[in-house]
């Protein structure tokens, strides 16, 4: 992950589209004039979104030059955070959490289900370019473990069947339900509140 691999083409140039440029300027405006480098993270994210979900070197260079900061500093940021993809990813980036709480709640089975459904191993992309499968550390939704993130959406309280059906729906261009996949509202207890479920009483 760390050094760029050679088995895919790096584009030679990158440039924000006018719409993205407006968004970039809005981010920069949040910081004092000589501190525009502070906007490096949102700008890298914008670049990644514009560029099919991955960040080529030309885009990192572009963002660094745009912000007037050394290119190496943009590389440092982009390689530090796993949310920046430095290699091409599929249209749906399936990121299964395998950190401790999710693992205790059965993330191994979720990983197996995903591998089975997609026919790829961890870190690989399907031949049709639709899916990339990755494992992630804690994504902060342990309360509804096990879970996975696909692009910007969380899918929680998974089991093997649900995982497979989510992936199948995506493959057919449908929009699966996000959030908890069982009878749970947000991150409340299953089946509804178990406390503070009535008024405080009194007047």
């Amino acid at each position, binding site marked *: 992950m760390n*050094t760029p691999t050679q088995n895919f083409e*790096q584009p*030679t140039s990158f440039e924000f589209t006018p719409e993205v440029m407006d968004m970039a300027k809005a981010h920069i405006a949040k910081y004092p004039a000589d501190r525009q480098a502070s906007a490096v993270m949102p700008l890298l994210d914008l670049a990644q979104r514009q560029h099919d979900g991955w960040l080529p070197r030309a885009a990192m260079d572009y963002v660094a030059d745009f912000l007037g900061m*050394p290119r190496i*500093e943009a*590389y440092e940021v982009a390689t*530090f955070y796993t949310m920046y993809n430095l290699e091409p990813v599929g249209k749906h980036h399936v990121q299964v959490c395998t950190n401790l709480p999710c693992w205790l709640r059965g993330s191994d089975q979720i990983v197996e289900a995903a591998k089975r459904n997609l026919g790829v191993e961890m870190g690989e992309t399907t031949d049709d370019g639709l899916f990339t499968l990755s494992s992630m550390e804690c994504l902060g939704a342990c309360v509804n473990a096990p879970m996975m993130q696909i692009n910007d959406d969380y899918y929680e309280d998974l089991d093997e069947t649900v995982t497979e059906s989510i992936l199948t729906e995506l493959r057919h261009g449908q929009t699966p339900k996000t959030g908890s996949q069982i009878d749970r509202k947000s991150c409340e207890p299953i089946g509804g509140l178990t406390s503070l479920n009535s008024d405080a009483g009194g007047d």
Partner: protein
Amino acid sequence: MPKLTIDGVEVEVDAGLTVLQACEIAGREIPRFCYHERLSVAGNCRMCLVEMERAPKPIASCAMPVGDGMVITTDSETIRQARKGVMEFLLINHPLDCPICDQGGECDLQDQAMGYGYDRSRYAEEKRAVKDKNLGPLVSTVMTRCIHCTRCIRFATEIAGVPELGATGRGEHMEVGTYVEKTLSSELSGNIIDLCPVGALTSKPYSFNARPWELKKTESIDVMDALGANIRIDTRGAEVLRIVPRNNDDVNEEWISDKSRFACDGLRRQRLDQPFVRQDGKLQAVSWDEAFAAIAGKVKSTSGNKIAAIAGDQADCESMYALKKLMESLGSANMDCRQDGAAVGEGSRAGYLFNSTIAGIEDADAILIVGADPRLESPVLNARIRKRFLGGNVSIGVIGEETDLTYRYDYLGAGPDTLADVAAGSNSFAQVLKDASNPMIIVGSGVLTRADSAAVLGTARKLAEATGMIADGWNGFNVLHTAASRVGGLDLGFVPGEGGAGTNEILSGSMDVVYLLGADEIDMAALGGAFVVYQGHHGDAGAHRADVILPGAAYTEKNATYVNLEGRVQRTQLASFPVGEAKEDWAILRALSAELGQTLAFDSLAELRDRMTTATPSLGNIDDIAAAEWGGFGADGAMNNDAFASPIENFFMTDPISRASQTMAECTAARDNSTTARTGTHG
């Protein structure tokens, strides 16, 4: 000033110091990897842990500012345990390949592992391995050894001003490097070899050459530029294996340029190791006597005013003094130590010195650079300007070429018209200089070789006077020379005497005998039909033109005096003997003088120095600067409008030694490659 108790001893130190520095003042040695006096504090290796009263756990002393009443313990069981713990973790991912590592014997990690390492490992899991990086022809990498102290990154970013190194990835996957493969674009890159506390960054040309304990270490002075950096020459037998910097806060701090450090392999190639005489158009090896006889035969039949001498850029004071005396005894006043024809040295001594001193750059609050590219002409001095720049509250203006000097500056213009504007006060930078309390001007040596140099110098002098650069206790007029011999030669008066010819005239083909003392950077064709004697150490341009070659000593092979650009007198020390039949330069001239029937009045180096310092007393004050009185120099007159240009085209090859160096040739090639466009499709 805060008072601390360190291991029961009370010390009072300056506010703003760190606990680590206070411990050193108290005479306690604190182990460290990431901390370095000249770099920002990173606080990431945790080796410098000490105990602080009332702190729940050990603190990193390098990152903790001193406070009044602190009670510090540097040597307790807890601390030893803590440091052992840090060491154990550092060694988990360190390869322990000391037997095949060039750092062995001078490795901080090795040394400190002796103090804090366990004698066996508890770690049975996989070790990490990191791909080596290609940083170019100078720095060799074994990145698995890197302990992530980030010293190299901080050096490149802060001191060298080329933010190209970084730490990419994180956690176990963190790697130090450039990410996109490239040669470091700094003239100071070799210093990261010294800074790296382990064997991750080592010298490529020196790799697998020697162990430090096999080397003889000689303290000396560098002559690759006019800065006079303090160096240590490491030799084994007759061979100079490497050159490293010595600390001198007033001169080079602890940095040297890549040329100073790596050109030394040029000392092994193209050497003149015996006398030669040209016979039938071909140089034939001869004995010293035959060579002297050939010179005597020619000189005795030539009248003094047709004999001339030019001293090259690395000539030492002793040999220039001897040659000057010899020329005078032959009745010749035709001599010059400015082989580039620079018109500098007439008038006041202050007119050719870096008067503010190098350390004085740090006191300046406005700097005007005229016709100089300090980054190429003296990279270490440029680092001082950058240091000043990072300190803030300084305005820097440049007249001349607009290049990346590693700091921000106001670009004022390209040529003398801009200089005239500033001098006349019609350029806004004039006000900046006037408002500054310590304004300074740096005039490059490219200015001095122009046809109108006297007028430019005169304008610069007026500018200096008009903007308050010459004041009590401050002289901000600075000339940035590139030749190590220049100030010494001017101090000695190795310049045309009454009615004598200077370089330009000598190069007009009017002389019958020309004596070149290591002068190679002149137009040899312009010597016309003269009989040329070349005394020097390399088979370079001068030797190719010569009719007689007298093999001399390179700067590592003699005890000699050099005066740096600020007028500081320093001495080199013989680290290895001159090669073959070559001799120390003053001795050659002394022997030749006897053959010519003009025996010079000294028989030893000590006697020579006695006479030399009687003639020029400042040369006797070793390591000192004799400050110069302000006075007149330069001239009035018109300046032409050609843009200023730096005399250095290729930083890596400026003199016979660096031109003979394989390493410098590789650097030149690497530089040329990196300036051709990258394709961008590959890593």
